[in-house]
């Protein structure tokens, strides 16, 4: 977060040099407005994540999505990411909740990547109308194997970076 804060400060200074104080304030008011708009959704996402962490049986999750879940765990993660409704304000809290209740990095990577690449929400709402049916469908077909491959690569790297199975908490 410190890095991001520094980056933001530099960019704000650049905007100030280019557009003066008005430019800085314009962006600030617009973004504060946006912040107010997304706050309720963030709250909903946090509640969703907390309920999931509470409801899902940890033992079952770590069996079906944990480090030993194999290809099946990656496929479940992929399917889950593809059908998850909502936007980033649901996907990331839910993914974080899965990590807490025993999913491993691999299955969670499969879920996040699947949500972003083959999730239907963004494709239907934005990609189809802007890029056309032909392109969108081929793009999705080409993307289909990616979540499982990314999850498998994640697992492969994880056991080599953390051979003792270090807990995935920051």
């Amino acid at each position, binding site marked *: 977060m410190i890095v991001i804060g520094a980056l933001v400060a530099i960019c704000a200074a650049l905007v100030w040099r280019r557009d003066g104080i008005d430019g800085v304030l314009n962006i600030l008011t617009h973004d504060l407005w946006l912040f107010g708009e997304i706050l309720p959704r963030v709250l909903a996402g946090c*509640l969703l994540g907390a309920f999931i962490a509470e409801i899902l049986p940890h033992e079952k999750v770590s069996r079906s999505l944990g480090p030993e879940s194999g290809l099946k765990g990656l496929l479940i993660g992929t399917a889950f990411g593809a059908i998850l*409704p909502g936007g980033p304000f649901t996907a990331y809290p839910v993914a974080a909740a899965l990590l807490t209740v025993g999913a491993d990095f691999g299955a*969670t990577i499969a879920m996040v990547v699947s949500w972003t690449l083959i999730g239907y929400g963004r494709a239907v709402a934005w990609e189809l109308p*802007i*890029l056309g049916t032909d392109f969108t469908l081929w793009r999705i077909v080409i993307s289909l194997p990616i979540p499982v491959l990314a999850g498998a690569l994640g697992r492969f790297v994880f056991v080599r970076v953390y051979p003792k199975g270090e807990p995935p908490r920051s």
Partner: protein
Amino acid sequence: MTLSALIIDITLWGSVAVLGFMAWRRGRVVLVSSMREGSMDFINIMPRIALGVIGSGYIAAVIPPEVITGWLGPDSGWFGVLTAVIAGAATPGGPVVGFSIGAVALKVGGGPPQVIAYVVAWALFAFQRMILWEIPFMPARFVWFRAAVSVPFPFLAAAIAMAIGKP
């Protein structure tokens, strides 16, 4: 408020209600404790989201869109794929901006494999989504890990597109 935003909010709060009901059926204590947990997460995450929203606005303002379109230029080889991937990660704004840039690139003669790589890279690495959503919500180690193992895949997508000659 647009219709799609309304639908999103209804499904979102609907899911919250359904899961809250499921928690309540396990007992009031479960419901109350998970609501407290969720609210604490919300309070902890709020400053980070604030920095993300306000910060990405400034970052987006210093990236001129011509630069992005320039990187998605007519180079049809692997160098074109590489610049498309960088352009995808650097594209500011939401899905409308990303997909529109892809559509413009297709129209002015950009190669479909490069545009595929661009869209996939945008989906995987768009900096604004990572700063605003992924970093605040996920453990930092997960975010870097996820991003690192995702690097090969825009290139793989471009390779598949070249191999099958579609779209």
